């Protein structure tokens, strides 16, 4: 069920009305759970089995960690939870990749195995398995003030199961994040009042989110469609450059738009989700980019993988290895092909190289010219790296780059350039306003109502063809 579909609007409205009905306060968690399960089951009800199975096992494992009397048994249950989550992720998402690596022909597998392998990738699996991992690890960290007391965990299995069911199925974040850590979400599970809704946050997030998705991303999708083999072979270098630029804007608008919609929806029900994008295209370094892009994933990988591997505490060489491993696995999380791992490794390499040169004038200089050069450098690198997202086969990426460098003498079609520039303009303005906000806060504050009014008008007047969110495929 897409956030921009009529069934979803009907479901969200009905849920909202029931949620705040007088006398229904004690049923709020149940209402959200039912709505979330309906949201997930729409179109593919059989996938509910896997989701509910995941909830059950994560509940049991995390509850056993809580109840275990020895550190050893706590570790055992926590490890079981993590292994279970990773196993289902590997099985459903990476079965083909693993088979290729083991040189096993998938057609040679029969019976129940072939039936399972034939299942489509369960939507949202990358997200709810990560939530499951966060839960068992956060509960395991007993000495950490973030766990138990602060997490408001329950002492009975049934109550804990209900909380976990909400955490793993909460519909704003279920399909495509943000990845919310358990210690951030659990303390929020309590009765909510209509008067406590953060209306400003909800409306601003929803309007901006739907604008980025419906007006920017959906319209750019019809232009970047041409980044597909063999169509891109016919275009001039300039057109291809703009298509790639347009894709960079599209993927930001699509994903940031989704995240903002999720934040806005959650706010309507009294829950806060973490910010997932913080104007990433103003980044002056790759490390800064990863503190601004898909922040919830970066934070998750940092806390649950990078730090446990040693982070930057075990020497330079080990730091570089840790960066490469984390980024490659982060890339692989996005998709079950080597091109995604390559994308992650590319970013890992950039981070490693950057560390080597971070004391250089290029990185340390504060002059305006150097700032602009750094921002452009990061943006260009990130944009070209997106090719590995858009074209899953390496040979097509190579063909695209060859066409980009080889079709210089072919005449460009200005229509494509004009359209991409028009639809990219709001995202550029969005980033510039972020920079201007520091200098002219009062002016921008006064212009806000008009800006939101214009965005709402654009949603009504200039929405594109409805498309699924890009990150739904992960």
């Amino acid at each position, binding site marked *: 069920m897409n956030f921009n579909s009529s069934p979803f609007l009907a479901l969200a409205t009905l849920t909202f009305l029931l949620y705040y009905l007088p006398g229904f306060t004690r049923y709020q968690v149940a209402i959200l759970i039912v709505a979330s399960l309906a949201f997930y089951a729409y179109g593919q009800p059989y996938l509910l089995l896997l989701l509910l199975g995941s909830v059950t096992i994560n509940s049991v494992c995390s509850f056993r960690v809580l109840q275990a009397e020895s550190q050893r048994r706590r570790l055992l249950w926590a490890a079981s939870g993590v292994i279970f989550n990773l196993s289902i992720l590997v099985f459903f998402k990476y079965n083909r990749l693993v088979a290729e690596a083991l040189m096993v022909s998938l057609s040679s597998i029969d019976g129940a195995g072939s039936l399972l392998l034939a299942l489509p990738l369960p939507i949202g699996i990358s997200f709810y398995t990560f939530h499951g991992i966060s839960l068992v690890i956060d509960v395991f960290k007993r000495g950490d003030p973030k766990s138990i007391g602060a997490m408001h965990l329950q002492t009975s299995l049934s109550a804990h199961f209900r909380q976990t069911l909400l955490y793993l199925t909460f519909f704003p974040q279920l399909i495509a994040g943000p990845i919310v850590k358990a210690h951030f979400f659990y303390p929020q599970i309590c009765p909510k009042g209509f008067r406590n809704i953060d209306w400003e946050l909800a409306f601003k997030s929803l309007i901006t989110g739907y604008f980025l998705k419906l007006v920017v991303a959906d319209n750019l999708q019809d232009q970047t469609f041409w980044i597909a083999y063999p169509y891109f072979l016919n275009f001039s270098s300039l057109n291809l450059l703009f298509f790639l630029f347009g894709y960079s804007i599209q993927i930001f608008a699509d994903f940031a738009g989704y995240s903002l919609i999720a934040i806005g929806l959650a706010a309507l029900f009294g829950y806060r989700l973490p910010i997932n994008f913080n104007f990433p295209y103003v980044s002056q370094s790759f490390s800064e980019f990863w503190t601004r892009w898909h922040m919830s994933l970066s934070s998750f990988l940092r806390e649950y993988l990078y730090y446990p591997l040693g982070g930057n505490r075990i020497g330079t060489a080990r730091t570089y290895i840790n960066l490469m491993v984390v980024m490659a696995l982060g890339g692989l999380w996005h998709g079950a092909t080597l091109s995604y791992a390559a994308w992650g490794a590319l970013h890992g390499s950039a981070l490693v190289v950057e560390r080597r040169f971070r004391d250089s004038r290029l990185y340390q200089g504060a002059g305006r010219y150097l700032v602009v050069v750094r921002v452009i450098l990061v943006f260009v690198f990130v944009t070209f790296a997106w090719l590995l997202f858009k074209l899953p086969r390496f040979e097509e990426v190579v063909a695209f780059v060859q066409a980009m460098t080889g079709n210089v003498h072919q005449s460009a079609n200005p229509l494509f350039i004009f359209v991409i520039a028009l639809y990219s303009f709001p995202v550029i303005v969005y980033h510039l306003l972020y920079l201007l906000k520091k200098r002219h806060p009062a002016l921008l504050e006064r212009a806000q109502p008009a800006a939101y009014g*214009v965005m709402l008008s654009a949603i009504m*007047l200039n929405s594109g*063809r409805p498309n699924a969110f890009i990150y739904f495929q992960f």
Partner: protein
Amino acid sequence: MICCFSVVFCYNLLISVWKPGIDVAASQWSLNRIKAERYIYEPIQPSAVIVGTSLAMALPQEGLGSQTVNLSLGAVGPLTGLEIVRRARSRPVVVIIETNLFAREVDEEFVDALFSPGAYLAREVFPALRHEFQPVNVAINFARRQTKRSSSESFLERPNPEIFRRMLEVNRGELDRVPSASAMDAALAKLKSYIATLESRGVKLIFLKMPVHHTLQKSYVIANNIARLKEAFPDSQYRWVAFDHHGEVFQTKDGLHLIYPDALIVSRRLRSEIESAIEK
């Protein structure tokens, strides 16, 4: 909210007064949507309407004349066009059905979005809500007058031989892929039901075989489509039109889509056929 409704209201007023001419769309889908909405909302009733794919879409309006609407839609098939004709208020005298790639399923999402009751009425009352008058489309057409290119596909007008060869190879590969028999049967059954509906309204039919590259004429998909249709709608009972049966060769951009000069020739000949069908 006040700002939003003010903007929409003022924009609607501007569009109603200015009536900007829209010839170019931002994308293929946008163009499809504009053509479909024009067919649904325009007060002028055309005598003939063409339904088809991007092959028939290449037939220029100047060759077809003012009484024929070309409702051929890129990336979808004639079944989608027929569904629009079925649901729309307009009652054409003649419907021309492109046969080369007829078996593409109806794009239900596209058609439902056009005819969903609330949105249909809103677009009828507020033309500014129609796709044609989206601010970006208006801006594109305003700027287009400063450029020489006339359509989003004009880049394909004169491909170089290497690109033509590559695209022909790709198209040959696609059209030699055997489609599922059940999908084919379903498409044919659907077409039969549309034909029955049109005939019950007294509409005359023309089955159009668009000229394509000779190697693609013999491709599995096109050859099979034509054979199945001729079996279901034989020459003896239905009017079939083709323009390349005397060995005449028409040039294409990529094996499938006619270049402009040849498309103009075909459209003029088709116009004669349409006029003849209307007179009978």
